[in-house]
């Protein structure tokens, strides 16, 4: 597989995942404001914080009201991480590697992009939950089409590594932003609003039902543990890292390399670290620091994959 193609597929996986996560965050927040329009906690500012691009937002929009946030995260054609830009970039990458992904995958992504692009303007005047549900359906279809129409070869492994690294990153960001935002409000602990906030956090990663089945009651430690360490829930940080670890190992194997690669070493060590930790350690060391470290490591893994496979020049 060409290095350029592998790189495009990897990024295509990340970009669609990024767009999907944005849709989830916006959807859950809209839902929440509909149910509790008078809620004291501002749900929109943390959403911008999730992206880490607060400065750009503040400079361009100022106030974090629903309209502005939906515009910024959803449809801003000048903000490179907005939903529509992510999908455009993903589709552009897909166009460059059309011959290496299935026809169905390209067509699904093509429809997905056009749906968001065409629906954009009307969503601005009237953001509805319906729209985000539709997006989630597109994203689920995308996942299904990839998994069932592409042979799980090198290309698919790069794609899988990309989307899981992105997903781990996004799960950690939403946890970070919400945790920061929710926890300091000691007076809310144990109230109905608090319960609702945490439920929404779980909904944002489609984990509400899975959590309820295991734990029934909302409990901060258990929720944090569910987010970070759950072994089998597909959007937990551990499950994402474990999946990406598998894909990176498969890539390494299929490339017939004699020596262990930096990327496979790094991701394996992150996985081991997560395996040997528990939620108490995370909370005592400080959640924010833990997530900061995690994001740094995920970035380094991404860089190592690029060095190992995308920039490979010269003979091996």
């Amino acid at each position, binding site marked *: 597989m060409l290095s350029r193609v592998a790189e495009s597929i990897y990024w295509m996986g990340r970009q669609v995942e990024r767009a999907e996560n944005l849709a989830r965050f916006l959807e859950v927040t809209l839902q929440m404001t509909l149910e509790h329009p008078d809620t004291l906690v501002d749900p929109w500012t943390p959403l911008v914080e999730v992206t880490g691009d607060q400065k750009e937002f503040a400079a361009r929009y100022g106030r974090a009201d629903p309209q502005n946030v939906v515009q910024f995260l959803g449809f801003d054609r000048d903000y490179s991480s907005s939903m529509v830009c992510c999908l455009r970039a993903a589709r552009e990458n897909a*166009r460059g590697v059309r011959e290496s992904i299935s026809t169905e995958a390209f067509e699904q992504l093509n429809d997905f992009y056009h749906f968001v692009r065409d629906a954009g303007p009307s969503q601005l005047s009237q953001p509805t939950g319906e729209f985000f549900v539709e997006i989630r359906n597109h994203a689920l279809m995308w996942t299904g089409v990839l998994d069932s129409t592409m042979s799980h070869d090198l290309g698919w492994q790069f794609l899988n590594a990309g989307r899981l690294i992105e997903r781990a990153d996004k799960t950690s960001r939403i946890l970070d932003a919400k945790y920061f935002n929710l926890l300091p409000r000691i007076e809310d602990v144990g109230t109905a609003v608090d319960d609702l906030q945490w439920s929404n956090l779980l909904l944002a990663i489609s984990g509400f039902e899975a959590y309820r089945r295991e734990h029934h009651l909302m409990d901060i430690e258990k929720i944090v543990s569910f987010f970070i360490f759950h072994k089998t829930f597909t959007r937990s940080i551990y499950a994402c890292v474990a999946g990406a670890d598998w894909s990176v190992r498969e890539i390494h194997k299929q490339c017939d390399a004699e020596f262990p690669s930096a990327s496979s070493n790094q991701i394996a060590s992150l996985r081991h670290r997560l395996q040997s930790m528990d939620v108490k350690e995370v909370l005592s060391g400080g959640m924010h620091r833990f997530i900061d470290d995690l994001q740094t490591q995920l970035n380094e893994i991404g860089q190592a994959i690029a060095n190992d496979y995308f920039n490979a020049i010269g003979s091996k």
Partner: protein
Amino acid sequence: MQQSQKSAADSSSFSPSDGSSERTKIVLPGYSTDAFYDELVEANGVARPDAEQLIRLFQEMPDGELSRRQQAIERLLYHMGITFTVYNDKTGTEKIFPFDVVPRIISSMLWKHIEAGLRQRISALNFFLCDVYNEQNIVKEGIIPEDLIKSAPGYLEACQGLKPFNDVWCHITGTDLVRDNSGAVYVLEDNLRCPSGVSYVLQNRHVMKRNFPQAFSASNVRPVNNYCSRLFQMLRDVAPPQVSDPTVVILTPGIYNSAYYEHSFLAQQMGIELVEGRDLVVDRDIVYMRTVAGLKRVDVIYRRVDDDFLDPKTFRKDSVLGVAGLMDAYRAGNVALANAPGTGVADDKVIYSFVPEMIRYYLGQEPILPNVPTYLCQRADDRKYVLEHLDELVVKPAGESGGYGLLIGPHSSKEERSEFAAKIKKNPRNWIAQPTLQLSRVPTAIDDKLEGRHVDLRPYILCSHPNDVWVLPGGLTRVALKKGSLVVNSSQGGGSKDTWVVAESGQDVATASSPST
């Protein structure tokens, strides 16, 4: 794989008949051929025998149905992502290449004539390319003057003395054909460099089969879906002989090239890598591609990058689309290039005018398909005639293709004609002129009604050996959608149509249910 059936004996009733009296005449109501040659109906509006099934379908269509199908097909093309981005549009608006739902139908008899003519022509052109870059016998014997060859912009000194594998230079050709008012077929251009459009042939067929299954099945159309297998086999056949299992790739200028969709489509259909110049590297005259597992050797390159941009070491220094050292690897016999660099010499319109001579010289045959009569302004007599008849002729620059920089005499102003007269006198070698042909027409869906529009035809020809020339039964029918226009180029309001070549008994027939790609 291809699932075709042998046409049954009774299908001969759909072949051109001798106009037997029991045939019910099918007329396209309200349609006028306006005294042009129409591919589907005769002058009196009666359907030609091979078009009867199709015309009957249009007759029976309720109002609005034609538009509905047209729109359904446009939606499908949009969904398939067969689009190009509109330049200078920041919102990223995309358009499909215009497609018309009414196919062009070619009888088996006419096709036999076209096919034989193209095989003869490509064979002769390939002999010419071998000769002109080696012995130059055709020059020595005084058939083509040396200065005309040396002054052709597509002539590459760097290719002198080269012998591509299997002696094939023009592996893939897309010859442009036109028909005049009498229905006679002429060759307009040969396009021996990087002809594009074959992906539209395959995709047009795909959408037509989905939208007109009955008329398609009943019309006994020859399949086009084995093109990619043929292409792949040909590319393997012309690999360096020392390689037993050659690695074949397509070289594209990248996603911003207008034919990029086609490059990726062909790579996908053949299951081979689509590479850009930056994916390739030449080391000690061997071409490699950069893969995730290191460098991998490449043996055959179907290049869709023009000669000038192929190798900055040999040709244009500023090219970022090519690969430095590629020509050295080619000269060393370590890689095959399709088409071979240098084929552009025969695309020059002055050299084109000698193709009938080439056919006589190399094959000892009379040309089956005539050229459009061509006046060379280089010749004093021709020049005089051209300058006196500018208002009747089409004047073309010899080195251009794609309908650029021409003067269409009957549609021109006095100023334009004097401007061209000056250009011709200044550099006669660069100009040729041809009579303005009344191109044939095909009914075309315009606002839910059928109206005649002018068409040309680009068949695709593969050559894996000088004696093995294969013509895809069909081709790209380009249509000038503007009323009265003779310009079929997509940049100037042109669209395309599916092209149905009718099978003779015993030939494979495509079925509406067989996979198109």
